[in-house]
């Protein structure tokens, strides 16, 4: 079916993206903090197949960028050819914080550098920083979304299943969160955290803050599902067999909510990634040198960077297919589970 095809393509793209970012160390030719002051603001490295002597190489190769001090531009030094190598040993990195490795997918011999997305003001490779930044922004978004939906499931199930004053109280609580302009609230809560704090703590706090803001809508939707599931005949029948509330929830009611929960996840993840990006962009996220997609874009606030170095936009451009894929997945899920749009 055509729709299935769209969903599959979106999921494949998402899977690829996530794998690249998860294994950032492997796919990135350089570390995220590796500076090279001689190569500040270098444009993306170009790959060639034909060299200056008109010789064709089967392997693509790059030239060294020579910094022309007088007008601060970069020109390719055509004297030596540096072929692209695969599975190159390079700077050590850790996979999932546990396993050490040194192999990188691709690289070139020194003194050439391969910067697919160019470099920033400190000569750091933007492509590597993009992948490492993704580890922060992407997973912050995902974890926060899981948190929101998780709280939503708990609150929504309790409110829908038990009704009465529990329902009233919980829904009034969610009203409070609906009434808050969430971006402002996010900022206000961020203000409550110290500005300069060790990385992982900030990450966790950031994630919890973002996640705690958005539980209200999933809770509402799940409550609706639980309300109707509660009345189904097979639930009544199970009750007739003497089933406890916990059993009914676990076995019959909650499985009905998974569709809505999944759809909400697909909707919230891109929103939360953007929230983290916005925070980092404004300097309210995790500090240097840990990159995040937002901090990669922060230099664009300087006019000279904005107008002269177009490649600094590329990290943002790369986000477009990611969000597109998430939205397509969310649309497909929505159609499948027929959730009510709010």
């Amino acid at each position, binding site marked *: 079916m055509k729709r299935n095809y769209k969903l599959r393509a979106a999921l494949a793209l998402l899977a690829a993206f996530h794998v690249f970012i998860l294994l950032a160390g492997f796919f990135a030719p350089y570390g995220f903090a590796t500076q090279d002051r001689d190569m500040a603001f270098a444009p993306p490295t170009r790959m060639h197949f034909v060299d200056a002597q008109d010789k064709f190489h089967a392997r693509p190769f790059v030239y060294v960028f020579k910094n022309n001090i007088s007008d601060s531009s970069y020109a390719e030094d055509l004297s030596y050819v540096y072929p692209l190598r695969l599975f190159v040993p390079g700077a050590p990195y850790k996979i999932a914080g546990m396993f050490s490795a040194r192999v990188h997918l691709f690289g070139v011999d020194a003194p050439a550098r391969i910067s697919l997305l160019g470099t920033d003001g400190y000569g750091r490779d933007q492509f590597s920083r993009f992948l490492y930044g993704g580890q922060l922004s992407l997973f912050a978004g995902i974890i926060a979304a899981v948190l929101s939906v998780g709280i939503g499931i708990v609150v929504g199930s309790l409110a829908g299943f038990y009704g009465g004053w529990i329902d009233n109280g919980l829904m009034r609580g969610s009203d409070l969160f609906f009434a808050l302009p969430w971006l402002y609230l996010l900022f206000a809560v961020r203000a409550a955290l110290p500005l300069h704090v060790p990385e992982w703590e900030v990450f966790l706090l950031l994630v919890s803050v973002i996640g705690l803001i958005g539980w209200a809508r999933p809770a509402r939707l799940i409550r609706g599902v639980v309300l109707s599931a509660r009345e189904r005949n097979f639930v009544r*029948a199970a009750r007739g067999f*003497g089933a406890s509330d916990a059993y009914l929830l676990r076995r019959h009611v909650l499985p009905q909510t998974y569709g809505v929960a999944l759809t909400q996840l697909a909707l919230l993840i891109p929103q939360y990634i953007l929230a983290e990006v916005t925070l980092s962009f404004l300097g309210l996220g995790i500090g240097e040198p840990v990159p995040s997609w937002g901090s990669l874009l922060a230099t664009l606030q300087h006019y000279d960077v904005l107008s002269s170095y177009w490649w600094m936009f590329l990290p943002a451009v790369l986000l477009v297919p990611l969000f597109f894929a998430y939205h397509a997945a969310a649309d497909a899920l929505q159609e499948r589970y027929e959730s009510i749009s709010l």
Partner: protein
Amino acid sequence: MSVRRMPSQPVDPPEPLLSVRGLAKEFAEHRPFARARRTLLAFDEINLTIRRGTTLALVGESGAGKSTLARCLALLEKPTRGEIWFEGSNLLALSERERLPLRSKIQLIHQDPASALNPGMTAVEIVAEPLAIQRLGKKDEQRIRALELMRQVGLSAESACKRPLEFSGGQRQRLAIARALALEPTLLILDEACSGLDLQTQETILDLLADLQAAFAMAFIYVSHDLRAVSEFAHETAVMYQGRIVEHKPSDELFENPEHPYTQELLAAMPSMDAICAGRLIGVSR
């Protein structure tokens, strides 16, 4: 004449299995701004008894309160007044915990089996569910018993892993019956259990029920508006009209000599027995 499905003599102890006295159910309307609370009467002054191994039919038009009564008897809803005596105890006076073991003995079969079965569970899981809930035996023992029950209702073991939607309407109803049998009930309440099925399937279900009754001396309360099936299947018939029982007699007598005007109307609206029998002898196979 028509073939009787049930044994000609009711079996076992002459004391009633279930005895209902003065049962009534009112619904209060929830209208927060209304001046007076109106109450809707579902049924009132219901007195019934039923013995093991017999079938009591409850007939009447839709909206007469039959289904609500059925649910109250199955303890799925709370009546407003009255007593339900079952195996020597007044069920309504007991606490939930005391009621639990007795509750298992009364089971309800719904009209629409699809809604009564969780579409995400497999057949054997559904049938074993009561055992799982009550924690009777270990998992594999439960599974074996479930397969045995399925066999009893005529479902093969191959269909054990299928889901409800993969079965036909009649098979789903069998599944529901198998599940209801798991806790070895003595009273089965069938709320329009055959109404959604085609004639042929109805026959097979009724056959199954008759066999079960003969084998286990179960009592049935058969709620229906299909008088033909009732006439063949039930020992006694009670007619409900606007929430009250207006006539309650052994089926033969009722169909020969209806006394209450409403009963007469009902019977008049029914196609004649002879015509039906004639049709049966010619066309319908078993």
